[in-house]
């Protein structure tokens, strides 16, 4: 793992994912990709763009709209010695194929007492903000992270995206790789420029299970992942103008969860805000708060806060959706209400 940012290659997440896959496919014939529209189209989100031309339709394999069969097949191929990558076009579609993932892929290592590994990567698009409504805009981070046996990652920028994809492909376990549509660098989705960063051409990995302090600060810790990191960074900028120094932690992985980094940061700042575009209840935000408070509640100077998506289906209308999404202003507000000691109404 090297963090060689002496490069002027600014890649989008889409391109850095494709590059990681390409490099892995070049060096390992057991790596291949399956999914809907990943061949000629190059993936709806561009993650396999150019790969069909290079590797052909056997290894860049369009599938029927049969997620149960082809994700099941991914599990079977992984157990048989391949390193398949499969794309589930939107995470919202897990309802038609979740069994293959959490009841087979994620558990067969355990059920077999380690005889059988399932080295597969499931990459899937998450997130909203572009008016795709309630069946195409969810994050469902904790829906995966709650189930044992899979690793779960979600990058916030192209550098991490490449390193995490490499690590995911080399990992001997199922890895759920959740990429946020608003960070992909596909202009038609309205992209966050901060996600497009310097990304070395060389292959490198980022260890799964390590969070990163992406901005240091002393007054409050803002924890997020994927789009939430950018909201947090913007909020930190705003807070800085009022003299508040915010530390921002990019979780990067949900499983394994780097509890130490979060705890250490809060031990320093004494305050915690969690940003999560997933639904508020029974999710990432609760887990982070519980992690910090069960460890040592005395480290917190104020009640923790969450800035999350409300517990409602995601609405279509842009003004509705934007009203519900986390953003920098809501984080700033959360900080202010936190230091005032206002109670969160239930």
């Amino acid at each position: 793992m090297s963090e060689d940012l002496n490069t002027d290659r600014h890649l989008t997440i889409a391109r850095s994912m494709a590059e990681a896959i390409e490099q892995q496919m070049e060096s390992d014939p057991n790596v291949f990709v399956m999914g809907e529209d990943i061949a000629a189209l190059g993936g709806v989100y561009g993650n396999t763009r150019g790969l069909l031309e290079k590797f052909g339709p056997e290894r860049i394999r369009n599938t029927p709209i049969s997620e149960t069969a082809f994700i099941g097949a991914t599990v079977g191929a992984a157990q048989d010695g391949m390193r398949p990558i499969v794309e589930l076009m939107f995470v919202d579609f897990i309802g038609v194929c979740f069994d293959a993932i959490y009841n087979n892929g994620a558990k067969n290592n355990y059920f077999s007492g380690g005889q059988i590994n399932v080295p597969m990567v499931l990459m899937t698009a998450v997130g909203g903000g572009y008016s795709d409504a309630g069946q195409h805009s969810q994050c469902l981070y904790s829906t995966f992270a709650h189930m044992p046996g899979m690793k779960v990652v979600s990058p916030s920028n192209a550098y991490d995206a490449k390193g995490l994809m490499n690590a995911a492909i080399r990992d001997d376990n199922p890895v759920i790789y959740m990429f946020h549509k608003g960070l992909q660098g596909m202009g038609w989705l309205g992209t966050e420029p901060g996600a497009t960063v310097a990304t070395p051409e060389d292959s490198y990995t980022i260890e799964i299970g390590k969070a990163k302090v992406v901005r240091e600060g002393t007054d409050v810790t803002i924890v997020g992942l994927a789009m939430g990191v950018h909201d947090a960074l913007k909020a930190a900028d705003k807070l800085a103008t009022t003299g508040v120094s915010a530390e921002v932690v990019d979780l990067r992985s949900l499983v394994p969860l780097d509890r130490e980094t979060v705890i250490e940061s809060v031990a320093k700042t004494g305050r915690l805000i969690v940003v999560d575009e997933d639904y508020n209840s029974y999710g990432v935000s609760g887990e982070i708060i519980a992690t910090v408070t069960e460890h040592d509640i005395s480290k917190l100077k104020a009640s923790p806060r969450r800035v999350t998506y409300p517990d409602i289906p995601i609405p279509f209308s842009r003004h509705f959706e934007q009203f519900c999404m986390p953003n920098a202003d809501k984080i700033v507000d959360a900080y202010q209400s936190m230091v005032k000691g206002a109670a969160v109404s239930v």
Partner: protein
Amino acid sequence: MKPSKSTLLWMYETMETSRRFEEIIAKIYFEGKTPAFNMTNGPIPGEMHLSNGQEPVAVGVCAHLAKGDVVTATHRSHHQAIAKGVDLNRMAAEIFGKETGLSGGRGGHMHLFDANVNFGCSGIIAQGMGPACGAALSRKLRNQAGVAVSFIGEGAANQGAFHESLNLAALWKLPVVFVIEDNGWGVSVSKESSTSVERNSVRAAGYGMPGHFVEDNDPIAIYEAAGETIARAREGKGPSLIEIETYRLAGHFMGDAEGYRPEGEKDALFAKDPIPQMSKLLLDEGHADEAAIAELQATAQRRVDEAIAFARESEYAPEEEALTSVFA
């Protein structure tokens, strides 16, 4: 059973309404999205799947349906919604995300629901099929009239729900008809690369139900096949499967560059656009003269213009309204 003259005129006018509605939606869709296409901008943000070219399916089937009959539709359902009688003003307003929309802007173009005419959608492939069985079961259990029609694409015919629903419907002899709109493509994946048989209609035999195939987007043949199967369902004789060869004149969604389409395919399809074909048929068979056709077109246009004006003029709901209607 051939369509009556008034049915033919209704079919034509409805196809025209659907086509004209989408033409204007398509234009408005690009407002605020040029020169750099960004889905999030403009009065109609988000994905937009057009049904132009597939209008014959909608009218051929819905010509046999009453308000009380149930339709479950997909991500591509403007034509069906219009043919089923969904309130066009409120539908347009929903697509704009306005308070006067069918659901006040909560659902948008992929989630059009109109309880008055028992119309609903799901954007998840093939997942309207189970609910259609349930609506049919509901009628059967309550001894109440009505059939359910579930529309899907040919890509959806490879989804597990297809199999389970056809088996359940046949087993329980439910008054439901499954209609496959085979437009040859599931996004960028051709039917040949997704489907192990040439004709999905043959799959009906695996459930002991009749399977029909209708060639070449022919509204009259669709009307006939739908009539036969819907009558059968109403008589309590059980479900059927209809596969209809139709054509997607646009991309999968707006913004789709369609690089995957073989050269010449689109030109060939436009050459057999069903709408001019239908008006020609009306003329040729003497159901309408040029003036009558123009009149039907004008009516269609009027409805569309009115709906769009209604949508444009409507307000957005206050933003906190987003939090309502989660529970009954």
